[in-house]
Every structure is written in structure tokens, then in C-alpha cells.
């Protein structure tokens, strides 16, 4: 019984205490470095992916929609462009007949 208690209250030498503290600090530093590294990699990869997505979408030349009369409209059918001055070719042919 006394041996068990003795083992539980084992005292380390100052050098061993110092070594244990140093090892604990190194482990903490390694763990922290790992977290920082994962964070930085995530940011870089996100940045790369965001750049790739924006490059694939050409905002300077968006998709355009046109009504039957040639008027430019948006996706909801609202007129956004100038009204066509001339009727489309197909309409002209029908009118002449």
C-alpha cells in the first residue's frame, strides 16, 4: 500500500521537471502551428477557388434575352434595352404576304 502511495507522489528532479515543461511547450507550439497552417491553407485554397469561379463568369458580357420584336429584356421579361426600330425579318415577310 505504501509503495502505491509512494509511486503516486513521485517527485521529479528539477532537470526532469524542466524537460517535461519544455516538451509540453514544444507540443503546444506544434499543435498551434498545425492549427495556423490549416487556417492559412484554407484561406489560400478558398482564395484560389474564388478566383477560378470569378474567372469562369464573364461579368463584362452577361447573358442577354430578346423579345420576339427584338427588344432587349431581362430574365423576368421586363424591357431593359432600346425598342427595335425595325421588325425582325420573319415579321416583315409575314406582313408582305
Amino acid at each position, binding site marked *: 500500500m*505504501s*509503495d502505491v502511495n509512494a509511486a503516486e507522489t513521485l517527485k521529479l*528532479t528539477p532537470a526532469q521537471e524542466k524537460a517535461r515543461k519544455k516538451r509540453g511547450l514544444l507540443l503546444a507550439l506544434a499543435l498551434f502551428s498545425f492549427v495556423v497552417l*490549416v487556417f492559412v491553407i484554407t484561406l*489560400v485554397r478558398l482564395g484560389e477557388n474564388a478566383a477560378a469561379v470569378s474567372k469562369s463568369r464573364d461579368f463584362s458580357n452577361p447573358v442577354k434575352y430578346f423579345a420576339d420584336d427584338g427588344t432587349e429584356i431581362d430574365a423576368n421579361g421586363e424591357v431593359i434595352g432600346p425598342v427595335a426600330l425595325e421588325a425582325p425579318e420573319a415579321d416583315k415577310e409575314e406582313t408582305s404576304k
Partner: protein
Amino acid sequence: MSDIANTFEDETRIASFGDYVQLMKPRVMMLVVFTAFAGLIAAPGSMNWVTASAAVLAVALASGAAGALNMWYDHDIDAIMERTVVRPIPSGLIPRDEALGLGLIMSFVSVTIMALASNPLAAGILAFSIFFYAVIYTVWLKRSTSQNIVIGGAAGAFPPMIGWAAATGEAPLNAWLLFAIIFFWTPPHFWALSLWTSKEYGKAGVPMLPVTHGAKNTRLQILLYSILMLPIGLLPVATGLGGYVYAIAALGLGLWFLWAAIRVYASKAGDDTDIGQADLKHAKKLFGISIVYLFSLFAVLAAEQGLGFHFATPFVIGGLA
């Protein structure tokens, strides 16, 4: 109390950071990291420097993990051989369980970093290379066959392929050529070393070639592999991966390597005679030359691609790359 306390107090030497570094086989790690870096640079395309650095760090950690797992398993034979008895586990500085834990955690961390920083292919090859070295080579081959380092050499040959895969997400023929260079380089490199350590290997029961087949057969095998190294080293020229500078370097270094191997073959290195012991200088020289050979070859390859003085030779075979 007093017994336990005295046991601790009697320990005059406490494991330092350097001992943990030794557990990771730093010299092997240097070669692994360097060849992985060369593969990354030689691969086409560009990679963000942050993710590229993380990928190289992952390779270093994986190499360290494999080294720790190797030392954990080989603690018994390391304690027998003079060359390895000073390692952290047989010298009692680091407990075996700690080495195992460190190896496993570092394996996980390295593969995770590689997967995050590059792609699943590079992470997969990295994981396989750790498994290959720690299990296939260390646990299985090393103690069971004289061809241990021939097959086990694959573990050390993966790094440039990992670097290439990290940069491109692919492992094409050129990546396999870099793999082949290290794969065929490993046997003459290790057998040169084992010629002067064969007695220790024999004492530890490790069936290295000089132990099982004798020094004469080992010298012949060294020569045959060195002859094979010459064309294999030049193959990247045929695919266009290596340019003029690489071609000259591969030819020069390959001939130097071959010359050293011929000297070993013509000697009595490793024989159990006075002349055999004196001729070990040739084996030691070949061992040194083999390290310079590999470093130089990959340095030239990386420099050609990385510094932009790659000029394709007329020896490129179309459709190979």
C-alpha cells in the same frame, strides 16, 4: 519510494528535442524532402508558394513518421548493431510507446496537410509510402528476404512522384521516371553500405545480401544495378523532361557512379580477409558518390525547370511524355 525516485534520479540524460529529431531519421528526411521538392518544381504548371511549402512540409512529416515507426519496430535489432545502438529507443532516451504514438500522429497530420494543401492523389501516395516503409519494408521484407531493400526501395522512390502529383494532380510517365531513378539507385547505395556493416546485420539476423549471398555476389549485383542506372538516369532526356544540362549531368554522374561500382566489383570489399577489409574504402567511396549522384541529378533537374534554362535536346522521342 526511494527505489523509484532513485531510478529517475539516476538518469543523467533526459531526451532532448534533438533526440526526437533523431527518431525521425533526419538524414533520410533531407533526401526525401529534396527529391519531393525537385519533383514539385519539375512538374509543369505552377503552385501557390504557401500550398507548395505545406506540401513539402507534409512530405517531411511523413518521412519523420515513417522513421519513428521504423525505429519503434526495429528496437530489438537496433540494440544489437553498433551503428544503431545509439538511437533514441535502444539507448533508453525515448520510450517505444512514445515513438509509436508520435509516428502514428505524424502520419495522420502529414496526410491531412497534404490533402488540404494539394489533392487526394498526392495525399494517397503519401499515405501509401508511409505504409510501404513502415509495414511492407520494416515489418515484412527487412527480416525475411535478401531482396528487402530492392522492393523496399519503392518507399524512398515515391517522394518525387508525390511532389509531382501535388503540383499537377497527376502521376504521368515523367513522374514514374523520377520514381525509377531512385528505385534502381537504392540497391547499389544500400549494398555498398551493407558491405562494411554485414557482420552487424548478420549478428542481428537481418538477411542483407552480403549476409545471405556473400560479398562477391553483392559486388556483382552492385555493378549490374549501376550499369542499369546509366540509361535510366538518361530517360528523362528522351521524354523532354531533362534538357541539355540534365543530359550532360546525367551522363557524367552516371559514368562516375559506374566507375565507382566497377572499382568495388574489381576489389575484394567485404571479404573476410585483410585485403577485403582494406578494400572497404571502395565501398565507402561508392556510398558517398551515390548520395552526391542523387542530390546532383535532382538538383540539376529542378534548376533546369525552376530557373528556366531548360533546352530540349534532339533526343526527345515524340509521344513519350
